[in-house]
């Protein structure tokens, strides 16, 4: 299990390869990657991500441990960036390794649902019109009801 909260970019390709090669006793690997959308007509200049050092790592670790136990994972990886992120950049990724595809998929979705609403990150979007904190979505809170 590796949890990394970092301001530096990460290499999706290298992370995916390393994760898969480390777990050849698992038949299924799922990755999710979240990006700052780069839309030609969108006024977003930069997305700033604030977090709660200390709590962030422990909250992510607890989520990952829960996922490992609940979905019989062989391993899990969570990388989440903070600081200023520009359109097109990768914000975060999770990877899960399981014997069967159903567990790998469900664990990745579980982690994303919890990470969205329970890990202490806050996004702020800066556009030509000014800066605004991203509001939480009811649908993200509702998604937790599934688990």
């Amino acid at each position: 299990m590796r949890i990394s909260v970092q301001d530096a970019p990460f290499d999706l390709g290298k992370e995916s390869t390393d994760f898969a090669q480390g777990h050849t006793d698992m038949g299924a690997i799922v990755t999710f990657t979240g990006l700052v959308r780069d839309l030609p007509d969108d006024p977003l200049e930069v997305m700033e991500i604030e977090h709660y050092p200390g709590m962030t790592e422990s909250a992510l670790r607890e989520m990952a441990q829960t996922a490992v136990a609940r979905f019989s994972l062989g391993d899990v990886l969570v990388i989440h960036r903070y600081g200023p992120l520009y359109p097109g950049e990768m914000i975060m990724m999770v990877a899960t390794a399981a014997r069967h595809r159903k567990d790998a998929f469900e664990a990745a979705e579980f982690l994303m649902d919890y990470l969205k609403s329970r890990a202490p990150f806050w996004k702020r979007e800066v556009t030509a019109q000014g800066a605004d904190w991203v509001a939480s979505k009811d649908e993200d809170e509702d998604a937790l009801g599934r688990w």
Partner: protein
Amino acid sequence: MIDVLYFAWVRERIGLPREKIETEAKTVADLVAELRAREDRYDLAFSDLTALRVAVDQTLTDFDASLDGAREVAFFPPMTGG
């Protein structure tokens, strides 16, 4: 003495990221009441508790949680990670 932390727009409204507070508050709600009585910027920041979340010693909890033995309390809006 307790460390109180503010994040995102709570930090912006109160105007600082953290402070040490001398308090006898028994619960988070008691602490919130003390803070609101201090100054308008606190009163404004805590005016709608449904828009806020709280963590005691880095664990999410409720506003009626006890502060017995707590060293750190953090207030912030709902998280928007991922």
